[in-house]
């Protein structure tokens, strides 16, 4: 038997049009904590889904060896039987069931379909003790905080006699204390001989717990480092994560920047469900006319939450702060007021929040400002078709007709429809949330060109993106967010990927060491 508990060799996984994983190799030693790092979309989660059987054998190429044996998992059940258990980023617990019921869900202590509750409760108590959770097995999971829920997830994993535990961003939703608690627990399990893979954006955490680290970038393995031997620093990890050439993927532009048009001051937002959790913490930003301002940050940094809370308070509770346009305060308390004040928000969730998929292009484009083509509440459909055709022409929406339902369009064309919709509303400030997510390279270039044109017309653009090269290639000025705060403001000429990544991973509170 080799020293490795897990070897993944030459894993390649393709989705239509995208190579998510390209010949990826990952080796995890028995009894170590192995960190998996990379930017958003580098392929970490995809790799773990291949490993756990979410993507069954045959949908990828390459081989997986667990304890020296070749594995061909058809589903999660098979990988779990061998002791590979994954805890996903979004917790998969059922809030209305008790801790005990959740832990043994799908794995019930039962004979002939009849559950032995006594055994279930006893086992649950043992597991809860192991993870250090002092709660009754009968407590409903929904009544627990996120940190405790995470511990329940781990107890659930332990109940399956886990050999290799995979944690996908386990501390993303946790506060400092809970995070530290969780990481200590991991170290405890390691002493007992369990192996683990941890995916995390928080480099300080990785430094604390990991023995070795594998870095992915654009679906490829970049390197595997031994934390002690290679004397790995956070800077070293960052270099590995972002070290790629910026090719000429962005159109050229000469920014013509005017006066400050839009300002958000002292903005605070709390989580809509967990009312004690502050999602946006005292954020102040401004944008000038004709300027493209980027917001960089990792997942969960609060970028979308910031944008949506400013756009008609569409997210969060207990929102406080002020919004100014051209120096005077404006009312953005609901979406129609925000639109009337010249703000537009292009959602990151094109299909869920942006389009009405069952309606045609024309009706989607005019929706946010029907009044423009209506006479006394009556929509002038001929005028509407003319307008839609104009956008189809200008933004090069590839479709046989504007009567095409938007569900039949490709991602890039759908995004052009959403952009058309908001350009039609004639805003002064456009907030673009991940405007090129899931769009192929050619269409991306076209979208960038459109964004440039809008800036050229004097509109202020606030662009949220998870792709650092995109932020660097497009923006005149960049705000960096981490944990709901602005951790830095960088001008175009000073910005590098390393600098941004450092700010993105900066935890402003007490550091976990």
């Amino acid at each position, binding site marked *: 038997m080799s020293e490795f508990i897990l070897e993944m060799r030459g894993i390649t996984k393709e989705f239509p049009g995208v190579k998510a994983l390209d010949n990826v190799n990952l080796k995890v030693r028995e009894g170590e904590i192995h960190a998996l790092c990379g930017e958003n979309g580098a392929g970490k989660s995809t790799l773990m889904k291949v490993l756990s059987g979410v993507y069954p054998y045959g949908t990828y190429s390459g081989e997986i060896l667990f304890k020296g044996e070749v594995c061909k998992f058809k589903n999660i059940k098979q990988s779990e039987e061998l002791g590979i258990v994954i805890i996903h980023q979004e917790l998969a617990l059922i809030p209305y069931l008790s801790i005990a019921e959740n832990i043994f869900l799908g794995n019930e202590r039962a004979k002939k379909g009849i559950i032995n509750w006594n055994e279930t409760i006893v086992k649950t108590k043992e597991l809860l003790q192991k993870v250090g959770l002092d709660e009754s097995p009968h407590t409903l999971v929904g009544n627990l905080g996120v940190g405790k829920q995470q511990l329940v997830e781990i107890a659930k994993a332990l109940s399956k006699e886990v050999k290799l535990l995979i944690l996908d961003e386990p501390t993303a939703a946790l506060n400092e204390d809970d995070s530290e608690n969780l990481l200590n627990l991991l170290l405890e399990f390691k002493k007992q001989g369990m192996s683990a893979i941890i995916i995390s954006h928080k480099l300080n955490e990785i430094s604390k717990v990991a023995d070795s680290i594998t870095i992915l970038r654009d679906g490829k393995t970049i390197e595997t480092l031994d934390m002690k031997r290679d004397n790995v620093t956070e800077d070293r990890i960052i270099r590995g994560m972002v070290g790629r050439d910026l090719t000429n993927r962005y159109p050229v532009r000469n920014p013509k920047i005017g006066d400050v048009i839009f300002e958000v001051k002292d903005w605070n937002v709390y989580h809509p469900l967990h009312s004690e959790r502050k999602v946006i913490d005292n954020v102040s930003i401004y944008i000038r006319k004709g300027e493209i301002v980027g917001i960089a940050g990792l997942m969960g940094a609060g970028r979308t939450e910031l944008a949506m809370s400013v*756009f*008609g308070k*569409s997210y969060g509770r207990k929102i406080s702060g002020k919004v100014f346009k051209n120096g005077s305060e404006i009312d953005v308390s*609901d*979406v*129609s007021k*925000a*639109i*009337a004040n010249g703000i537009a*928000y292009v*959602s990151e969730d094109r299909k*869920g*929040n*942006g*389009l*009405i*998929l*069952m*309606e045609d292009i024309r*009706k989607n484009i*005019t*929706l*946010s*400002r*029907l*009044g423009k083509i*209506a006479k006394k*509440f*009556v*929509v002038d*459909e*001929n005028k509407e*078709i*003319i307008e839609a055709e104009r956008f189809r022409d200008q933004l090069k929406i590839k479709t046989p007709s504007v009567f095409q339902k938007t569900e*039949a369009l490709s991602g890039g064309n759908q995004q052009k429809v959403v952009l058309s*919709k908001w350009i039609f509303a004639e805003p002064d400030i456009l907030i673009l949330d991940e405007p090129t997510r899931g769009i192929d390279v050619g269409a991306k270039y076209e979208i960038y060109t459109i964004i440039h044109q809008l800036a050229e017309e004097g509109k202020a653009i606030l662009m949220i993106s998870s792709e650092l090269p995109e932020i660097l290639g497009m923006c005149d000025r960049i705000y960096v967010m981490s944990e709901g705060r602005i951790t830095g403001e960088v001008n175009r000429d000073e910005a590098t990927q390393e600098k941004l990544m450092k700010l993105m991973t900066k935890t402003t509170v007490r550091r976990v060491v």
Partner: protein
Amino acid sequence: MQTPVQKAIQHRSTANESKIQLLKQMMKNNMRSYGMVIALVLIMLLFQILTGGILLRPLNITNLILQNSYILVLAIGMMLVIITGHIDLSVGSVAAFVGALAGILMVQHHVPMFVTVLISLLLGALIGAWQGFWVAYVKIPAFIVTLAGMLLFRGFTMIILEGQSIAPFPKSFQNISSGFLPDLFHGQNLHIFTLVIGLIASILFIGSEIRKRNNQKQYGFTISPAAVFGAKLIVIVAIIMAFSYVLATYEGIPTILIILAMLIIAYSFVANKTVIGRHIYAIGGNEKAAQLSGIKTKRVTFWVFVNMGVLAALSGLIFAARLNAATPKAGNLFELDAIAACFIGGASAYGGVGTISGAIIGGLVMGVINNGMSLLGLGIDWQQAIKGLVLLVAVAFDIYNKNKAA
């Protein structure tokens, strides 16, 4: 090298091909939207044959209209509710409650008819507002709110009627659903005024179609070939005139038909042409996207329920007038007939899809099947069973069509 003649021939044939393709495309589009119309015609033909010609007799046609009017009124409102992605189970009870109130006011307290109708519609609006409040602002699923409403208002009906029926209504009130337009021209065997109205309707229809076409031409849109356009006009005018002739040979146009026609035209206009109509479809299609487009989703949902309340009240009045009594059992299962009409007429259970004309066609399909089976002497037992199957088959057909198109 091609000779000019060859080129010309080729050009012509491609032009012809594109014309044929356009025609095919139009046929396909029309097949989808007119699928239920064709089904309705086939069902009518079937029963016309089975009943030996009774179905389309003037007396029976008039009866068909009178019998189904209150369901059609409900179906119009229900269609809007379903488009927004909700449902209203309470309309039958609301209709009964309003009918009961009208009975008490008019028969027991001799309130004038006009005032009674006004109060009744207002009560309907209030009930709609009550339910709309819970659905739109408190976010309780409409199924539950209106299920509660169904019990609540049925209970209220029985309470205010004390379990008794109230009858008879004044003649003027009965005329709402059993009256006919007078013949201003005093025809002998033929109701001439009816024919005149048919003629006016035809002219209005032709006028609006031509205006629409010219408008489209002005904007440079592709329009259907003149021959097709002409054929369409002739067919529809023929149907209007045949229909008025049939009515004219009996008592003429029922008052209720005028009310129905006005409702259908007004609501179709609102649904298709106005800003609020767009908003209703948008909310049903994707509530989140609609909200992020600045649509006041709660307010619109609220008003859709208020509207449903008013139409339910109107339906209750029509039914009470037709029955010439307010009874505790009135309106029983009306909600299900109205809902079935909407789904047969092409509404989507997920919201966002449906047309007013679809609701009417769906209602008529149910009405004709009911009426035809009654004429054939089939019992209520078989009628129920067959109606259930028709609903299922119609929706299955619709889903099959959509999957094929996608």
